[in-house]
């Protein structure tokens, strides 16, 4: 391959050729680096599928945990996960959206607002296990809620509230200010503007952020270990004060056993968990696309 000569002499030509070669090498390097992540994802998914697919059956979903890997199932964990995530949604959603509305529509430009905002950003970076410690000391011990579904859901609510607040703020900020101005111009009060104009427009975005935050709650293990969810539960929870386990915790308890059989059940459990996550994310994507189409 020859490059056009610059007409500035052989030295400049050689230099130019080198620069172009370096450029190509760097482009390939960048493309290669991007592949690392994609390939790692593919290997992980294929590995888990190969290990877990043979154990994937209706029995897996309808059996409780067992000392025998061939009889073990995820029934209690699946029910626990559904309980915990639903309850977390009920607790965290209204609080977070209210906080976001306050920060975007009501808050004065004041140091206290900035402090709240900075605090929320910092909370989003606190390791989840620290929330577990908070849940253990506050809900399990101080409030006497014990190792219950309610303790677990409250702990996870604290964990995902900053995430939902930030997503909801972004969705509210995306509502064009002209809409608000028009409503104010017609004599609407602040709450009427929020209730009838801003919220309906921001809702798909808020819901997308909420679903993504809830899918994080669905995958959390460490904070629930702290608040005392247990790996071996042979019943499904029937109330807020019942003991519980969740899918990731059940998977952890199987992974930490040395027998190969339990590793296979763990892989099958992971497939169930990933299936749930995929469903939630698909819903979020559909919502986001509808939102884009409307704005």
């Amino acid at each position, binding site marked *: 391959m020859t490059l056009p000569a610059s007409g500035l002499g052989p030295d400049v030509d050689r230099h130019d050729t080198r620069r172009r070669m370096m450029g190509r090498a760097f482009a390939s390097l960048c493309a290669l680096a991007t592949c690392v992540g994609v390939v790692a994802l593919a290997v*992980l998914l294929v590995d888990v599928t190969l290990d877990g697919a043979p154990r994937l059956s209706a029995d897996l979903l309808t059996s409780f945990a067992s000392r025998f890997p061939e009889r073990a199932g995820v029934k209690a964990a699946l029910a626990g996960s559904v309980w915990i995530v639903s309850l977390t949604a009920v607790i965290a959603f209204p609080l977070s959206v*209210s906080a976001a509305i306050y920060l975007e529509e009501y808050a004065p430009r004041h140091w206290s607002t900035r402090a709240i905002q900075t*605090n929320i950003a910092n909370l989003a970076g606190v*390791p989840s296990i*620290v929330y577990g410690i908070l849940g253990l000391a506050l809900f399990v011990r101080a409030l006497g809620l014990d190792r219950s579904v309610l303790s677990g859901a409250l702990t996870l609510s604290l964990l995902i509230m900053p995430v939902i607040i930030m997503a909801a703020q972004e969705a509210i900020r995306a509502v064009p200010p002209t809409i608000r101005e028009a409503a104010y111009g017609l004599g609407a009060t602040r709450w009427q503007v929020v209730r009838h104009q801003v919220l309906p427009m921001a809702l798909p975005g808020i819901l997308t952020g909420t679903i993504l935050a809830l899918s994080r709650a669905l995958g959390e293990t460490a904070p629930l270990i702290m608040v005392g969810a247990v790996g071996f539960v042979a019943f499904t929870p029937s109330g807020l004060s019942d003991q519980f386990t969740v899918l990731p915790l059940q*998977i952890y308890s199987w992974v930490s056993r040395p027998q190969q059989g339990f590793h296979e059940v763990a892989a099958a459990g992971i497939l169930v968990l990933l299936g749930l996550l995929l469903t939630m994310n698909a819903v979020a994507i559909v919502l986001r696309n509808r939102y884009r189409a409307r704005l």
Partner: protein
Amino acid sequence: MTLPTLLRPGDGVAPAVAPVSPDPGEPPRDPLDLSRGHRRNFGERLIAAALFVCAAASTLITVGVVVVLLRETVGFFAEVPLTAFLTDTRWEPMFQEKHFGVLPLMAGSFMVAAGAAALALPVGMLSAIFLSEYAAPRLRRVLKPLLEILAGIPTVVYGYFALTFVTPAIRMVFPQTDIFNAASASIVVGIMIIPTVSSLSEDALRAVPDSLRQGAYGLGATKLEVSTRVVVPAALSGIVASFILAVSRAIGETMAVTIAAGNLPNLTLNPLESIQTMTAYIVQASLGDTPQGTLVYRTLFAVAMTLFLITLAMNVVSQWFLARFREEYR
């Protein structure tokens, strides 16, 4: 010529009807009655106050974390001197002869984080350059969410992957490797934090104004030179912010590390050995029976406090860099 009279609310909505003879008990309602506005104002203020309470509640979470951690940590340091905690090289809180040196746990956390950073920072950064500078928009729209899936996979799944895939692979190369080892944990944590680096850095790179790129091209620079000598330096504070945030995530990571790196507090630099991180200790101690009020129970809080302070400091620094970056290109 008649001047238009001022419109009053209600005018033009319904045909003018002769006013109904006023009820003797009730005075006629004036549409401009200001007391109605007062009532409306009261409701408005109530709503505003309720919303403020919800926003302020988020600060209560931080207060809660700090109070809870401080209370038990103070109790811990009443029994174990701070110097022993920070300088003793052994962490043996459950042995007969107790040692409370947090160094082995910190070293474990930092070793895993360093290994993860060694993988994720260059890979994430180069991916960010590829996505922002080289990839066609269509390709970027596919690749970026694909990479972000890595951050959405539950960490317990990474633990499984480390134990059943990465560790056996390492042992094929280095047969003396422990079943639980820091290297395997580092690799999966590194994979996990790639999207933190790539997505945030890409946002920073794309925020660099195009005029800078065009200026450099105009001077005859190649794409490599534009990317590495103009765009990356211009986005540097945003990139640094993403690096710090990623490392802070690696330090706070719990399940993958607990499953893959082991539970052996071990002050070592050999990544093929079994170690224990701060997070793994917290999980191990809370899985066992740790009655409230005992010293072992308090170690949980002392270690969690250490972890909280380290990650908080990193997050604050990261946000400072991010704020500086945002200011530059506003």
